């Protein structure tokens, strides 16, 4: 564990000094600032922020994660020639990448809220978005590491990363819609909850929308969703699902990393 901390410390230093993170922080800051300045309506600003968080964060995290891992390959080799176990090194690199990026997001995202005094305004919504952004960063960096560990070819790896993003951000919802049409005779609410939980992007979207009283729009489905996600058990399950999205890819990539040839 001490080794993890050492690696983590230097990795964080490295990542935090990169222009990437500064740019990322600035991006969220200006987006929030712009939305609060130019769209007079707060709830519209929230919806836009939500879209940016559930789409841009996964895309940036999965691409940045892959590129970072591929670029770190020689460094990883060098570190592995030192007396360090692979598990610690891998944990250190993963956390050292995820923490600065999610911190960059958290700072850039939160600042406009404080500047415009919007935190108390919609504290629930703010908190859900903040938490969601951080969790999605960890999830998609875990996925990107899984890809990079398994696929040595950088171009292929990046291709797979973008493909996975497309599947989770776009195609998945297309399949959900198709299922709704195919099984329209059946009560679908429970299956929809399950399908939502299985996709972190959808889960993020729904958790946020539930905070915004949009459930009432959804009629019976909304009532079922509200009952599930409004309940503390539902909240715990959602949270566990998101945690699983971090832990499972991390577990498999870590296991593969341990027996990988460099």
């Amino acid at each position, binding site marked *: 564990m001490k080794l993890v901390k050492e690696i983590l410390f230097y990795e964080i230093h490295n990542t935090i000094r990169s222009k990437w993170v500064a740019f990322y922080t600035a991006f969220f800051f200006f987006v929030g600032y712009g939305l609060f300045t130019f769209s007079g*309506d707060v709830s519209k600003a929230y919806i836009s922020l939500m879209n940016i968080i559930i789409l841009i964060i996964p895309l940036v995290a999965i691409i940045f994660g892959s590129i970072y891992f591929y670029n770190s390959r020689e460094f990883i080799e060098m570190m592995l020639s030192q007396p360090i176990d692979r598990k610690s090194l891998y944990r250190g690199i993963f956390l050292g990448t995820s923490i600065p990026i999610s911190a960059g997001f958290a700072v850039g995202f939160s600042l406009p809220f404080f500047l415009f005094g919007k935190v108390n305004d919609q504290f629930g919504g703010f908190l859900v978005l903040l938490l969601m952004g951080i969790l999605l960063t960890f999830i998609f960096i875990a996925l990107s590491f899984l890809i990079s560990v398994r696929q040595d070819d950088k171009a292929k790896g990046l291709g797979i990363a973008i493909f996975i993003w497309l599947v989770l951000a776009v195609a998945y*919802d297309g399949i959900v819609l198709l299922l709704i049409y195919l099984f329209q005779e059946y009560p679908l609410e429970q299956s929809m909850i399950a399908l939502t939980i299985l996709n972190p992007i959808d889960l993020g979207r729904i958790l946020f929308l539930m905070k915004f009283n949009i459930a009432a729009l959804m009629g019976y489905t909304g009532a079922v969703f509200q009952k599930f996600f409004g309940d503390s058990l539902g909240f715990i399950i959602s949270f566990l699902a998101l945690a699983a999205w971090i832990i499972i890819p991390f577990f498999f990539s870590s296991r593969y990393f341990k027996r990988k040839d460099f």
Partner: protein
Amino acid sequence: MSIPKKITLSTTLAVVIFLFACSVSATTITVSKNGPVKTISAALLLANPSDTLLVTSGEYAEGNILVNKKITIIGDNFPVIDGKEEGEIFTVTADDVHFSGLQIQGSGLSFLEENAGIKLKEVKNCSITNCKFLNNFFAVYLAKAADCTIENNFIKGESVREVTSGNGIHLWYCRDITIINNQILNHRDGIYFEFVRNGKIQNNYSKGNLRYGLHFMYSDSCEYANNTFEQNGAGVAVMYTKNVLMKENHFINNWGTTSYGILLKDISDSKIERNIIDQNSVGLYMEGCGRVTISNNTFSKNGWALKLMANSMDNYFYDNNFIANAFDVSTNSRQNFNTFSKNYWAAYKGYDLNNDGYGDVPFRPVTMFSMIIESQPTALILLHSLFIDMMNIAESIIPAITPKALTDSQPRMRPAL
């Protein structure tokens, strides 16, 4: 909204003196817990037509009071007339009866009788002003009444369930009724109209009623202005009616699976102007409506700003503002026989090269997703998903399932004032 103010003794005296001046023959009978006349019922027996009953403050546990002669009943400092939840409190069967300054409470719940705080039954020229109605089954009930005024009353029920509660102001077969400056809370329907002609409803505030803030059917030539309907179970419903004018009302915050800012069913030749329709599940729902003009309204933050069912035709929507609604317009058909023009749509992304204030590209307010939702309500869980946004864009370029004719050919670049 003004709450009826306490009527001070001096104003009451002024009214009394005024009445003396007008009619020498009329006398005032004082009802008092300590006086010779201890109950209103007793006073009514003594009274001659055109007399005035002055009820001093105190609690009068009486109900089932029949007012069958022309009389004025005035309360001094809100005497409480408590029906103890049995039967009706005042039943009026004579013309020219006037109530003011009373606190009327506890008309009895019944599944057979529509017991009210005050019921005006087949009468003319009556008025109910500055009264408080608390915890009544029905509060004010007008049956076959005409030329009456209900003004400055505070009406609050304690409704929990729809079946065990009555309406705040209930009109049945009435004409020329004015309802003004009342506050109606927590009844079944705030204001209920059935077969009413020439009703005028102004400056009322209807909030937290279980079913509708305003509910009217078969009621022609009525006017609704400057009212606020807020947080009612199902908003406002207007059905089977002609020649309605609804202007400058606020329909706010009616959220729920079957809540509407305004629900219009079989309405024709009516006008809906300059209303604010904000934060409702469905802002305006129209079914079977014809020749209704909807103009200068602002629809904001509603789930659906406008649900326009296919059997509505020849309605005209212009100069309205549609801002930050989850769906601006949805419909259940590919056909459209209504006209949209010069509305402001916040969702519009077109441009105005010739700078005339109107976008050069027509706007299609009905999105593909809203069409999908009509047939597959479950699909609403995909709200704000990227896949859906992409489909909407594709559909707006090449319409395949949305009504082609439902477009605003002159979308405003800036909100209409």
